[in-house]
């Protein structure tokens, strides 16, 4: 299978990547193997982000190119046939519609081999609970940009616990105004200052090196 594909994904070379996917497809390469190579390229993107060679601009392009390649082979990234380290459910808490920080985290987690379920913004407690029941994540991320959303985070986490879903589940929070005091207040397991913090926390939790 093509090293060219991995490199094109890692280097964000859209034209080479499209040509390579089409070539592999015409040669009859299985879709899952192509997806796995794309994921290898995405892992390199994640590594480069961690090493500050890449930034948000490159994460966004990598997600865009990955989506384009997946569409060419008819793959469903959300279904995620590719192996992953674990499942991460993420959303911006209800009452808050900001999505930039949330999108950074979901992209970085995806680049690092996690299956990501993105619930979007203004996410209700019921939607978090439903997603936890359906996808059985190891980690849930809750984001906000408004201090007025702290009470919503607190209520959501209490409700997850009351629903009996907290055992074996870690809940991370992050976003502009959050800090450790916020994490303590809302009852989260940890506060992530950066997107990379969520990767490191989750990898450590799942024993990934």
């Amino acid at each position, binding site marked *: 299978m093509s090293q060219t594909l991995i490199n094109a994904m890692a280097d964000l070379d859209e034209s080479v990547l499209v040509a390579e996917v089409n070539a592999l497809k015409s040669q009859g390469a299985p879709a899952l193997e192509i997806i796995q190579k794309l994921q290898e390229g995405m892992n390199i993107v994640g590594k480069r982000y961690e090493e*500050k060679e890449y930034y948000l601009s490159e994460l*966004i392009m990598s997600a*865009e190119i990955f989506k384009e390649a997946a569409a060419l082979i008819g793959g469903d990234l959300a279904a995620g046939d590719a192996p992953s380290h674990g499942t991460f459910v993420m959303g911006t808490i209800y009452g808050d519609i900001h999505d930039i920080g949330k*999108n950074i985290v979901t992209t970085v987690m995806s680049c690092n081999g996690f299956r990501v379920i993105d619930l979007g913004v203004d996410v209700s407690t019921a939607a978090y609970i439903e997603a936890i029941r359906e996808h059985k994540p190891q980690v849930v991320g809750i984001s906000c940009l*408004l*201090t007025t959303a702290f009470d919503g985070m607190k209520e959501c986490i209490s409700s997850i616990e009351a629903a009996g879903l907290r055992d074996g589940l870690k809940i991370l929070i992050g976003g502009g105004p959050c800090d450790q005091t*916020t994490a303590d207040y809302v009852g989260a397991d940890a506060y992530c200052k950066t997107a990379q913090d969520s990767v490191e926390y989750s990898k450590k939790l799942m024993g990934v090196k």
Partner: protein
Amino acid sequence: MKTNAELLNERRERIRKAVALEKPDKTPVVPLMDAFCAKHMGAPMAKFATSLTYSNEVMVESMKELGDLDGSDSAFVAAPLFPLGFMTRIKMPGKELPDDMLWQLDEKEVMTRDDYDTILSKGWPAFEDDYLRNRIGVPLDDVLAELANIPQMVKKMEDAGYVVYSPLVINLVTEKISGGRSMPGFMKDLYQCPDKVEAVIDVIQEGTLNELRQAIRATKSEYVFISPARGASEFFRPKLWERFVWKYLKQVADAILEEGAVINFHIDSNWERDLEYFKSFPKGKCVFETDGVTDIYKIKEALGDRMCIKGDVPAAMLALGTPDQVYNYCTKLIRDMGPGFILSSGCALPANAKVENVKAMIAAARS
């Protein structure tokens, strides 16, 4: 007992000295005040967020109750003006949101790549007018009519003895395009059609520079507020940042300085990688205002001998902390930052900041 006029002069001088890196009698306290004032005074958020004049009245009352702070970044709430700065829709309390909620930008990809061609062929002013009125539904005539009352709003705050720190706000071109296209859309454009993006930004920038010069001359503003938040270093590779953010930010900053005004860089997110670039500005003519994401101690280390620093009491501490925590945080900051420092909230005072915490912040600068 000092008169309000005397207090106003004293506070102006305090701020002037801090900005010039001289030693003021006390550390100035100038938070970015808006939604907090509504909650503080029990004012309906829906009315506060949509009326500049009403917000001005509420803010003045809030400041009087708080006591001995030096001023506010602005004389009125900025929410109705956000769509003009970010070319994006806004959800407002009492309209798209419940009455007592905060306003929020509703960032969607409204501006398209095809719009770049329209801007290049028809020019920015015609495009902007149509886009604001018809694409994102800004009641432009109403907004402009209220803006005509700014001098009275500034006077009302000054009559109460408080400085309106930066009555003039200049919207930056990168914020407009990035907001209109959405952050992901804009970043994709930087990869997929960079030359066209640059051509569009050049067209808009030319108008921006002319307008800002006229605005500074017309308003005789001593301080100009610019907020390049979406251009943060943490978002872009250095080459992209230099080409699409810094180049245009520097042009605007140079024009403001040439007009004799002080620049308040309202810097949200992390700019740590590129702090060195700000050394190119003359000493004592700029303020680096941080929300706390760029470490204020690293700013001090890199720029403390060149520009005043403003910040950065954390929003979470103001909302959840105790007065002692706030007081101790501010006292340490005042001691560590030295004379070229203005004490402020990290970005805006949060709506749900505890009043006693805001008072503790002021008290720390007065002890």
